[in-house]
């Protein structure tokens, strides 16, 4: 019996040490995003970093949940938007570039609202560029600049940096939120734990 317990202890130790060693160093953070993708007071105690995909239906739903949460805790939360366009969504990367082009003109959040509100419309077209320009015109953006920014490919690196950050943080699904360092995946987890995490992180 003693032998068995000793062997069980050895096997258990080997397993635990292997897992912990493999997990070591898998977490890295690079939180530098353009200021126009941050909403809320910079001194807010709770930084909610959202990894999202404009073509993902759950992300569109989660946006409403997040908005309600930030309204309820005004002043305590700063939301940081990060792109994580999934490969399975044909127009996600282009939509991210369109949002960046709007962001360069100071209307990132309005444009992301439009993208989510009209997600079905643009995601089902053969080529959404025309619709993206229409949304930009609707917001009164400088259309020439918007179109040239969108077509220039200048946002590819910006979007890719977010994707790499997501991968470094082992984000696998959208939307994924980080309440400071607490992770929440999907709209239902956001609804279930969002409130509690804001309170925990803000110390209220």
């Amino acid at each position, binding site marked *: 019996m003693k032998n*068995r317990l000793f062997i*069980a202890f050895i096997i258990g130790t080997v397993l635990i040490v292997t897992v912990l060693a493999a997990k070591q160093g898998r977490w890295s953070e690079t939180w530098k995003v353009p200021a126009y993708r941050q909403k809320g007071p910079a001194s807010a105690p709770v930084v909610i970093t959202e990894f999202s995909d404009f073509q993902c239906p759950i992300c569109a739903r989660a946006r409403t949940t997040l908005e309600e949460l930030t309204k309820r805790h005004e002043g305590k939360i700063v939301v940081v938007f990060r792109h994580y366009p999934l490969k399975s969504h044909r127009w996600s990367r282009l939509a991210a570039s369109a949002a960046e082009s709007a962001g360069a003109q100071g209307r990132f959040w309005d444009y992301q609202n439009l993208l989510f509100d009209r997600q079905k419309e643009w995601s089902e077209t053969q080529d959404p560029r025309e619709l993206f320009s229409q949304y930009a015109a609707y917001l009164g953006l400088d259309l020439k600049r918007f179109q040239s920014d969108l077509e220039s490919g200048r946002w590819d690196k910006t979007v890719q940096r977010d994707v790499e950050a997501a991968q470094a943080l082992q984000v696998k*699904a959208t939307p994924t939120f980080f309440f400071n360092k607490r992770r929440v*995946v999907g709209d239902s*987890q956001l609804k279930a734990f969002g409130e509690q995490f804001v309170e925990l992180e803000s110390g209220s």
Partner: protein
Amino acid sequence: MRPLPAYLALAGRLVVGGSLVVSGFTKLMLPPEELAMAMEAYRLIPLSMAVPFARALPWVELFVGAFLALGFMMRFSVPGALALFGMFLAALSSALIRGLNIADCGCFGRSHLTPSQAILMDSVFLVLLAIVLFDKQHFFSFDRWLQPSKDRKAPHRHV
């Protein structure tokens, strides 16, 4: 010369135990919230339970799998593996029956196996486990090695 079932049982132990080790280890490398999200799709456990369950399950898989592959404490590891695969099969079947749209079964972290493929795989594993359960030889196992030498010759029981 050992009978064929003894070799089959050894192969079964290594395959099923190895799969559980890989599955548990892969899941442990992912944040538990990711696995919890995959679990949510089955709509079987409340959300408040999904994250704690997602934290515990991979460790159980890892330990049961390692013990099974090594043929150690088989009195517990074989029924443990049977219970795990029984649970997986029940969850997958209920999702299919209820017509839930589950693109990824959540097995092996994110394997992209559909529920039907996972049911097939788990069923094969259950058959292999049944062979292990009825095997009396425990060929190449810690349990056999730890037995007093006089007992090794006789057909033996689970220890």
